[in-house]
């Protein structure tokens, strides 16, 4: 095929430009979900079809559940390995909030949004360490998001994978969905997936891929999976516990460790240089003061909010 350069032939500019433009797939998720595996499948598939492929990935704080993303670009000629903002053709999110975070990279007129509604709450969503404090995690539901994209799929791939007996095949289910948005033969997908998954899991992965395709067939273009329960992520609704710090004055030796180590600066030494609680409302019940007091003078109890002292000791 002849190589096409932009503005080569003014008359056929539109069609030529379209043909010259690479296809851009952005895969996002959090560490450990398999973002890299998915992007390797995508890149290999495109390569086998004879395209030039560029892939670049950022692992970030992947080991700690931080964000991971991978750009895969393929076409007759690909210059930059990164996709410009607003030029993503398919955004594939293995985690819900990561999908939302990258939404502005999706092309509004031709882009497709595919997301697992699985929610992994990152540590930084905990803006206040107190028990029962609201999380900073996105509260947008699939309905809110799907109304803002041209083509969108939000499915409970993780739940489907669990039902298949292997929670790790969620990303293969999403590959099944992705395969309906791109123009490669199904056998090619299956061959590449087989190449990248552990030999013992080939069968379940191939079934997972089929489930993803079936899901699209069942649900058409848009629409959240009816089975999705989108109540707030776990952790939001746990009944708050009231931390209480007890200080055994006779045991305290005024070493100041608890005062300096309390992350919320709740404690102080009183006139007699004995530890004292000065800001109970800031205490999160983290127990650091209890752990680090060399004299066992501090006891932190996390009692149910409404339990009276007598009830708690019973």
């Amino acid at each position, binding site marked *: 095929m002849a190589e096409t350069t932009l503005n080569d032939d003014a008359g056929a500019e539109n069609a030529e430009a379209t043909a010259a433009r690479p296809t851009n797939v952005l895969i996002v998720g959090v560490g450990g979900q398999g973002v890299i595996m998915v992007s390797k499948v995508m890149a290999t598939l495109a390569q086998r079809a004879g395209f030039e492929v560029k892939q670049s990935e950022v692992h970030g704080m992947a080991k700690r559940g931080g964000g991971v993303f991978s750009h895969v670009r393929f076409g007759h000629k690909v210059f930059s390995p990164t996709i410009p903002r607003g030029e993503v053709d398919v955004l594939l999110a293995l985690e819900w909030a990561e999908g939302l975070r990258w939404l502005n990279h999706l092309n509004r007129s031709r882009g497709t949004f595919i997301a697992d509604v699985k929610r992994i709450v990152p540590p930084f969503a905990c803006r206040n360490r107190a028990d029962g404090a609201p999380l900073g995690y996105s509260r947008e539901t699939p309905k809110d998001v799907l109304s803002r994209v041209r083509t969108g799929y939000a499915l409970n791939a993780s739940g489907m994978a669990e039902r298949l007996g292997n929670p790790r095949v969620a990303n293969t289910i999403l590959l099944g969905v992705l395969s309906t948005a791109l123009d490669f033969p199904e056998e090619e997908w299956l061959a590449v997936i087989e190449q990248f998954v552990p030999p013992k899991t080939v069968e379940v992965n191939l079934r997972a891929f089929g489930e993803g395709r079936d899901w699209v067939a069942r649900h058409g273009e848009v629409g959240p999976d009816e089975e999705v329960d989108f109540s707030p992520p776990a952790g939001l609704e746990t009944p708050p516990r009231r931390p209480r710090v*007890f200080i*055994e004055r*006779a*045991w305290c*030796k*005024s*070493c*100041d*460790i608890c*005062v*300096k*180590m309390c992350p919320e600066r709740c404690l102080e030494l009183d006139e007699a240089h004995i530890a004292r609680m000065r800001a109970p409302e800031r205490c999160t019940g983290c*127990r650091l003061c209890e*752990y*680090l*007091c*060399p*004299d*066992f*003078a501090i*006891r932190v*109890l*996390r*009692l149910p909010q409404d339990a009276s*002292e007598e009830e*708690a*000791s019973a």
Partner: protein
Amino acid sequence: MNERPAPEKLPRDGSFDIRDWLRLELMPHFMCPGCGHGIALRALLWALDELRVNKDDLAVVSGIGCSGRTAAYIDANTFHVTHGRPLAFATGLKLARPDLTVVVISGDGDSLAIGGNHFLHACRRNLDMTLILLNNEIYGMTGGQVSPTTTAERFTTTTPFGNNEPVFDACEVAQAAGATFVGREATLQTPNLKDLLKDAIAHHGFSVVEVISDCTEIYGRKNDLGNSPEMILAQKREMRPEAYRNTVDTPFRPNPFNTGVLARRDRPEYLDVYRARTEALRRQGGGK
């Protein structure tokens, strides 16, 4: 006994309560303000509590030193024995009562200087017990003499111009001598230390856990290491978690220490070998 007031009676919330494991009538304990040994003792009792070790099935043996003295506060069978010999005592105890969980609390002076010989041979024998080595780099109890782990250039009463002896790395010595479980943790990381001690106690064979502990009152003062909070925070600069091995090229300071499980090996346990041998001999009808 003594006139100390009984501690306040507290409600329960299901979390570990150290009072369940203390001889309350002896509290408050003797240690100086900020001494790391107290935190190490908490971690040990917490580990035993989580392992659901029965107090009657537990024997804690300790040597002489501030480290060894901590055992006196444990509400279980405790033996406070000769300086440097807790491992020798514990070896006899375990051979006589293999059903007991045997834990030895010792110091750097106790186990690496005067008791160095027993330390090597306990590692070599691989009898199922646990040594907790509270390393504060000094002879705390006797007023601050140099120990085999005192950092270079540091001041002690016996190195008034700075220490010029090289140090022992207790964990490397233990591995070389054959210990089958070796780990290290600092008191700053109390929950990690508790978990490490749980693994060590559950390990079948001889296990060594070195605890980086602060002698605030003597070593800290003599070397201007700051007050208690400053000393314990300084541990953070020095530790290198084993999980990140090879990911940090330059140590954070001249004297870094690795933390976590440093070695775990499979080697026949002493009593298992002993039993198999006596059994074989019995079947043969006696030895030569």
